[in-house]
């Protein structure tokens, strides 16, 4: 009823025509042009700023908040009492309506976000206005699993670092988005691709690789931040990948390996290291005190067929630590030896102090597994201190895949997929988002297909079986679940904890919500219209705290696509 009829508009138009020109001149409001500004006045990001990112309430400088990857942001203007007043500050629509996994980086009022197909945008973090856009000229051949995703950039000094779907490492001018240098990481025709954000530390750009579904040989590398020259390479699959013939997983369950058959295959075909996979999907955590990095390594190739790859398949499905300066091996812990379920290690590790078995506080490492457990390690030697209660239903573990298909829970996406967890050390809580997708696991045998998809079978969702998800808070000093919120769909994307006593996370149905970090009570929510499947960030500009998140859906779980970056603030 409040809408104007056509006649109403015509009447208004007529009136406007009769207004004297001077009246217009007095009311004229100059507007900014719609297009991009072309430059961003970015504060150079020093190593000292990055080292202290965990204490910086103004900025969000690293993909997971800080080098320890706690995803705990110290700003507390938005808190349990006032979060109900949170509202949209601005929405920025990117040019790419496809799976959105970006983790926004904020440097003194300038925000950097990425989209599928490796686009980068610099935005005014206060208004959402576009400052510049880098549209990567993609090579003709890209080979990748699970969507043309990109999970973000990092800034050091005046450069923005990006790894692209066609397996290149690119340094951009933070001011203009122009390319400063570009380096080929690996050959996309052989199954290599990049979707992770680089981690930049002490003039080194650290990067892993995707490709565990294509028979690559995985790696983590360091490149010189100034020149793009490779400094060191660590093969995530060592020349001797056989290991200790472990028969039990990290939790002590029997994996039903046929060790005799594997030994026979090893004697016949040799070590399978060259095509054994072992991608690294997510960022390493950096321990600045010891100069070590900690990351997790993904599944062996082919995913479900172990017959061609005898042995433990080191260091697949493992936590690995290296020396930052040299890339030399320090320690590892393998969760699942000779994995034939693709229940690998993907979610980025987090460095926090933890209680060891005797109750003594020691430097620890957390990793949330696709198995649905959060694993707690001693940082000194990677050894396992404890594992949490299962956050998702587990059934029939570890039944071996069959030609007809064997049902087992969790399904192959987890548990916790690539989604980063958050922590609140003051409560000794880790917050994880989980998937529950009942699946059958099938095995097939085929030779290495020259860089093509090499699954060695298929994991298929069981028609008619309900899927769901959850947000779970785990006390990492006891392994007990503190609280859990059930969600109607599987969860993938990420989570953020803040000093305001809140956690923020989104769902595939477009819901983005804030929860009391102590008890999981929902305090606020918003409907984004497309899947919120990206990790949120927090920052402050002009004295106001903002929460920002991408709402663009997800390829892997096929949630509704969109192209929005949405920032929220209080009045």
């Amino acid at each position, binding site marked *: 009823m409040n809408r104007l009829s056509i006649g109403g508009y015509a009447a208004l138009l007529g009136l406007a025509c009769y207004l004297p020109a001077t009246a217009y001149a007095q009311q004229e409001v100059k507007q900014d042009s719609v297009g991009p500004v072309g430059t961003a006045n970015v504060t150079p990001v020093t190593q000292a700023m990055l080292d202290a990112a965990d204490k910086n309430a103004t900025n969000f400088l690293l993909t997971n908040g800080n080098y320890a990857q706690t995803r705990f942001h110290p700003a507390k203007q938005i808190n349990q009492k006032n979060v109900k007043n949170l509202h949209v500050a601005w929405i920025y629509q990117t040019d790419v309506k*496809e799976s959105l996994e970006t983790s926004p980086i904020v440097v003194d009022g300038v925000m950097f976000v990425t989209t599928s197909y490796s686009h980068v945008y610099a935005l005014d973090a206060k208004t959402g206005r576009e400052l510049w856009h880098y549209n990567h000229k*993609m090579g*003709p*051949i*890209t*080979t990748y*699993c*699970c*969507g*043309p995703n990109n999970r973000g950039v990092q800034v050091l000094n005046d450069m923005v670092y990006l790894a692209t779907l066609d397996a290149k490492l690119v340094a951009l001018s933070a001011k203009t988005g122009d390319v400063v240098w570009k380096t080929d990481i690996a050959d996309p*025709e052989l199954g290599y691709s990049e979707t992770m954000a680089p981690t930049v530390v002490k003039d080194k750009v650290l990067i892993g690789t995707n490709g565990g*579904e294509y028979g690559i040989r995985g790696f983590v590398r360091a490149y010189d931040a100034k020149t793009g020259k490779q400094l060191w390479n660590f093969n995530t699959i060592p020349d001797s990948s056989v290991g200790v013939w472990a028969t039990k997983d990290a939790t002590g369950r029997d994996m039903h390996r046929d060790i005799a058959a594997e030994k026979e295959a090893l004697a016949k075909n040799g070590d399978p290291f060259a095509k054994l996979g072992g991608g690294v999907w997510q960022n390493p955590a950096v321990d600045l005190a010891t100069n070590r990095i900690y990351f997790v390594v993904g599944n062996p190739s082919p995913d479900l067929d172990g017959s061609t790859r005898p042995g433990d398949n080191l260091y697949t499905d493992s936590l690995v630590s290296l020396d930052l300066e040299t890339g030399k091996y320090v320690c590892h812990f393998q969760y699942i030896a000779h994995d034939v379920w693709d229940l690998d290690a993907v979610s980025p590790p987090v460095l926090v102090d933890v209680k060891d078995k005797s109750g003594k506080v020691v430097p620890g490492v957390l990793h949330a597994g696709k198995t649905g457990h959060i694993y707690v390690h001693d940082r000194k030697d990677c050894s396992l201190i404890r594992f949490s209660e299962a956050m998702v239903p587990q059934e029939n573990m570890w039944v071996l895949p069959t030609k007809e*298909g064997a049902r087992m829970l969790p399904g192959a996406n987890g548990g916790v997929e690539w989604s980063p967890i958050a922590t609140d050390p003051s409560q000794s809580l880790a917050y994880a988002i989980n998937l529950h997708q009942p699946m059958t696991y*099938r095995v*097939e045998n*085929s*030779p290495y*297909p*020259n860089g*093509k*998809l*090499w*699954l*060695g*079978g*298929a994991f*298929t*969702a*069981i*028609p008619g079986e309900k899927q769901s998800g959850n947000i779970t808070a785990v006390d990492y000093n006891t392994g007990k679940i503190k609280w859990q919120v059930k969600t109607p769909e599987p969860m993938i994307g990420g989570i953020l904890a803040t000093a305001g006593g809140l956690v923020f996370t989104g769902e595939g149905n477009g819901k983005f919500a804030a929860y009391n970090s102590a008890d999981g009570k929902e305090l606020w929510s918003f409907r984004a219209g497309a899947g919120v499947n990206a990790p949120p960030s927090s920052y402050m500009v002009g004295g106001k705290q903002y929460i920002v998140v991408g709402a663009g*859906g997800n*390829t*892997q779980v*096929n949630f509704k*696509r969109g192209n929005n970056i949405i920032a929220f603030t209080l009045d």
Partner: protein
Amino acid sequence: MAMKLRSVILLGLALSAGVAPAAADSIAEKTEVCAGCHGADGKPVDKTTPVIWGQLTGYIYIQLRDFKRGDRKSEIMQPIASAFEKDEMLAIAEYFSQKKWPDLGQPRAPKDVSRKATDAEHSVGCTGCHLEQFQGTSTAPRLAGQSREYLAKTMADFRTRARGNNPGMSDLMIATPESDLAALAEFLAGL
């Protein structure tokens, strides 16, 4: 007439800019033979032959490469692809990718067929590679609007591994009930 005039002008510009006409001719020559099966207007002569007009560069290149390597079998395509080097394959792939995808006039699948197809798709996750609208990306081909008969034959060939250049696809098709394949082909063809 207008088109012809523009072509003459463009050719003139190309010559004056020092572009060798032989290069321009060679891509046309190289692809002339393709029209015999894939259609002079992009509509394949036989329904079990795929649409390649508007198909993705990365996918066409990989198929040519695999025909040459013998990873994908075809008495017709193997000798043709064997004559090309990588840069030629990429140029041909780029050439066809720039053409407009033809409308084969295939009807939308009825609702019950679409539902059966999307249930089957959800189980194995086709959109994980072919993307939400089945438009494909790079080396994962566009399926939307592809010839129904070609889709049906290809899925069947993946199941038997007669189509041998993507064992991952074979694994996924083997995991898909045979009774769902016709619905999938009809659904994808009608997009």
